Each structure stands twice: as structure tokens, then as C-alpha cells.
């Protein structure tokens, strides 16, 4: 039994990497994940990853922000302490618009980004789970779980044929832990 935990195909070109994904899928090799230094459109569709639902979250946060701001203004200016300012109406909706708008934006931005960080497990100080240190620089990395995916040599050959500049057989899942 080999000690290989992950097989990494390192590409120096995004199009060749896409070709690599295609070739692996043709040979029914499951792909664990793909790490790229920049967003490559089309991988998510190829790997069958559904569209992000962050947009819905953002919309709900926006609705919350708008409601909170408008209710706060209503409570303070109309309900709790209506002040007589030149005899003008207390419930002056046009004056409520700017702050309601600002808080809609504020809640959308913070809520959506917090959801993004939560869902993706991003937070300050999280240990980076990096499989190859050049994946944030100039390598497009396809990771394949070695367990159950045998023979490893075949996978290596598929990756090499697709144009991988290097194929790594890593004994550890993450290289960034020391």
C-alpha cells in the first residue's frame, strides 16, 4: 500500500488544466478540488458545483437592513419622541430615505461578506490548508484523493498527457502546516 494521500496535477496554463479536468472525467477519476491563482470560469460547471446562493443571502440582508433602519427612524421620530420642528409632519418619509438606503447597503455588504467567510471557513488566523504552495502564484492544481483511486500511475499518465508540468504524489494532505 503506497503512502500517497493526494495526487496533484500541476499545470502552468489554465486551458491545459481545463483539458486535464476533462481527461480525468473521461476516465471517471473523481476530482477532489482544483486550486488556482485566479478565478477560472467554467471549472464550477465542469465539476458540477451549483451556483452560489450568496445573492439570495445578500438580498435578505438588504431587506433586513432597510427594515431595521426604517423601523428605527419611525420609532425615534414618530413613536418615542415626536418633536415639533416648525410644525412639520413627524412621519416625513422622504427624510427617512437616505438613512434607510445607507443601512440597506451596509447590512447587505456586511451580511453577505460574513456569510461568505462563514461558508468558506475564512477567518483571521485560520490555518491555511494549502496543498501546493505555488497554487496561489503560477500553478493551476488539480487535486485527486489517492485513496481508492488506483492505479496511481494511470492518473499520473492522464495528467501528464493533458499537459501537466509536474505531477506530485503527496504523503500529506496539506503542505502548509509546519
Amino acid at each position, binding site marked *: 500500500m503506497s503512502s500517497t494521500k493526494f495526487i496533484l496535477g500541476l499545470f502552468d496554463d489554465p486551458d491545459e488544466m481545463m483539458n486535464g479536468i476533462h481527461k480525468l472525467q473521461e476516465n471517471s477519476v473523481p476530482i477532489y478540488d482544483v486550486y488556482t491563482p485566479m*478565478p477560472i470560469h467554467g471549472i464550477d460547471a465542469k465539476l458540477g458545483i451549483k451556483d452560489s446562493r450568496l445573492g439570495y443571502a445578500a438580498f435578505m440582508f438588504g431587506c433586513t437592513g432597510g427594515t431595521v433602519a426604517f423601523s428605527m427612524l419611525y420609532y425615534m421620530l414618530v413613536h418615542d419622541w415626536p418633536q415639533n420642528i416648525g410644525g412639520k409632519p413627524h412621519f416625513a418619509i422622504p427624510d427617512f430615505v437616505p438613512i434607510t438606503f445607507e*443601512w440597506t447597503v451596509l447590512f447587505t455588504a456586511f451580511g453577505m*461578506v460574513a456569510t461568505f467567510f462563514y461558508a468558506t471557513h475564512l477567518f483571521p488566523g485560520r490555518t491555511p490548508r494549502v496543498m501546493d504552495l505555488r497554487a496561489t502564484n503560477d500553478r493551476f492544481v488539480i487535486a485527486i484523493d489517492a485513496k481508492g483511486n488506483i492505479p496511481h500511475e494511470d492518473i499520473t499518465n492522464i495528467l501528464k498527457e493533458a499537459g501537466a508540468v509536474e505531477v506530485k504524489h503527496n504523503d500529506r494532505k496539506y503542505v502548509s502546516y509546519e
Partner: protein
Amino acid sequence: MASHSESIIREPLITGTDITYAKITDDVLAPVENTPTKAWWIGFIISSIAASLWVFAVSWTFWFGIGEWGLNKTVGWAWDITGFVWWVGIGHAGTLISAVLLLFRQNWRNSINRSAEAMTIFAVICAATYIVAHMGRPWMAVYSLPLPNQYGSLWVNFNSPLIWDVFAISTYFSVSLVFWYTGLLPDIATIRDRAKGWRQKIYSTLSFGWTGSVKTWQRFETVSLILAGISTPLVLSVHTIVSMDFATSLEPGWHTTIFPPYFVAGAIFSGFAMVQTLLLVTRKVLGLENYITMFHIESMNKIIILTGSIVGVAYLTEFFIAWYSGVEYEQYAFINRATGPYWWAYWSMMSCNVISPQLFWVKKWRTSIPFSWVLSIVVNIGMWFERFVIIVTSLHRDYIPSSWAMFHPTWVEVSIFIGSIGVFFTLFLLFIRVLPSVAMAEVKLLLKSSSEQAKKKILTDGHQDAEQVQFYKESLEKFDSVEMADYQKV
């Protein structure tokens, strides 16, 4: 899509030969990973001296009070609010570049958005310090927030644009910060994975554990797009509300409905000028000529012509409406601006903001780096005068002639202004020292489609329309970073 090749007639966004993904990383991170150059130190020392002047002058203000400023009972707002509006306006270009140009799919924004957004954040910090400083007693700032208190609670007056401004500026600052930092994560991860020792630990903490997996990128792009979508109306609302600080008053010269669009155009105008001032130096000192190219400079100059012209039309419209309204106070305010004791401020504003950007219609001038740099500073001077004219010239002739007064700044106000520029540049210089000043991940996206080398390959492969090839070659002539000799044989 990385493999998409675009039409040959489009100018390249990355110049130079032998640019690889690794080279982009190396070039952008050179100032972060190496000890600073002499130019950086000189800049940093000068700006931190100016920043210390700011600390001193603001402390002086807090210790002795606003009486140390040149304000009087007629002119109650002068350099403070001028400085505030000037800085907020400068900040607007960063959001315009990062958000509006993203929505319009202007790929040239990719190499300038990072530093422009950083500029936004630092400019808004300078603006916010002006607001706190002009309160004189900074601990009173808490009363601008609707917090429960022992007077009732007595809430803030939400009908006032000054309170709207508190919400607008704080939202703008925090949303810009979130937008900027989220965009920085992949690039901080790049530094982390190249660093060793304590630097690696720090950047590891700052990178939030970014890996660049498929899902991370997919969500990142969704987040960027939505943040751009909400930042666009946000940035317009911010300067609209700043203009309402004036426009909702009954002061002749302020009480005009044209203010919101006029202020927003002016903000973008001055912001792009500041981006030019910073980037023309940064690209040279950091050696980023291949990423911030003549195309970027020219595009920004074109935006300066556009927004400068809008501002010019707004000035003339204001004048026309003052006459057309038939309100004699309004008419007097405008005639006094142009011919009264502050005529020199008015005509400085007119010549810097209306005449000077029109010089950019000449292609030779708008593609000249020294000319663009000088003109960007002229525009910023002009935009400072614009706010000075609006504020001081409108205030200094009161409704009661016995209250008429002139405004003379004291050394404290002048020091705060010079100091705030120092604070801004200190922050910017620290930024380019510790964080990537160009969004590497986004620039890498352009390498296969829009770089000079990719286009050259299309040319050498042939099969292109000769007229288009000629057009493309001619468009390259203005670039200072393109070797034209290479194109003799292609």
C-alpha cells in the same frame, strides 16, 4: 475565460515580452518582499513629518479650541469643511474604478483598482478626521449617533442632512474597507505562500486561510459583483448627501437643486486626478510600467475630460439659474463670487477645473506623462478652490451688511491641511510597502487575452485584416513601455 482572445484592434492592457504568471507575482511583490528603496524612504520621511504636523495642529485645536482657527461669526465653515469635502471627493474615484468599471466590464480597471481603493480608504480617513476636528470637542462626536441617553432619550434629528452624512460616510468607509479587504485576500495568500518565518505567520493570519479552491473563487466572484452593485449607488449617494449639507440650507449660492449631480461629477473628477498623481509616480518607482500602461493613463485622462466638462457645465448652469431665478440674493452671491473680494479664488477654480482639463483633447498632451501629472495636480488645486468658493464666498457676505467679513486662515488650519496630505501619503506609502499595490489575481486574468505578447502572437500567426493590424500598430506608438522595433517585421 482565459483562452478567449479579443479583437486585435483593442490596445493591450499588459505590455512587455516574456510576461508569465510568475513574473506578474514577482513584479508586483518586489516592493513588498524587498527592503524599501531610497525613493520610498525619502517619500516616507517627508510625509511622516507632515503627518506629525497634523498631529500637532489637531492636538493644538483640541487643547485650545476652535478659536485657534480663523473662523468668525460670519464665516463659520472654511478650511475645515473645504478639506472634508475635498477628501471625500478624492475618495470617490476608487469606488468608481473598483465598482462602476467592474459593472461595465472595463478590464483596464484590474491593474489600478487596488491602489485606487486604498486611496479611497485613506482619503475617507482624512475626511473623517476633519469632521471630528471641526467639532473642537471630539468627545462630543458621540452625540451624532442615535444612542439611548439620560435626556429622554433625546434622539438625533434625522431630518438633518448632517446626520444623513454621518450614516453615509460611515457606511461608505466600512463598505469600501470590506470590498478592498475581500479583494486583497487572494493576493495576501500569495505573499503568505512565498514568505518564511514571522512574515509568513503575519500574512497567514491576514489571509484568513485562503486556498483558491473552486468554491472559494466562485463565491468570491459573486461577492465582488454584488459588492460592486451596491457600492455604485452608495458612492453616488455619499456625495449627494454631502451636497445636501449645503443644498438644503437657505444660503444663497448653496440652495440649488443642481448640487447633487454637480458634486458627484466633481468628486469623480478630483478623484481621478488624485489617482493620476499617485499612480504616475508609483508605476515609475515600483517599476509597474508594464501593468499600468499608457492605455490606463489615457483612459483616466479621458474620464477627467468628461467629468471636468460636466463640472464646467454645472458652473455655467449655476450662473444661468441664478440670473433666471430672479432672486436678487442668489444673483448677488454669484456676481460676488466672480467679481467680489474672492475673485481670485473663483477664477483659480474656473481656470483649473474648466479650462485645464480641456487641454486633454490634444492627444499628444494626454499621452504625455509629465503633462498628465502636472495637470492632475492643477485639477486637485482647482477642486480645492471649488469647495472654498462654495463655502467661504457664499458665507462671507451675510444678509446683514454689517456682518460682512473676510476669512483669514491661521497657521493651525494651514498645518491641519498640509498635515492631512501627509497622513494620506504616509498611509499610502505604508500600503505599497506591505500589501500588493496591484490586484495580481485580476491582472493574471488578462495575460492570455489582452496582453501585448498574446496580441503579438496573433499578429505573427497572420490571418488578420491588414488595416486592423496597421491600426493596432499605430495605437502602440504612444506606449512608453512597448518596444516598437519589435513590430518592424511582424
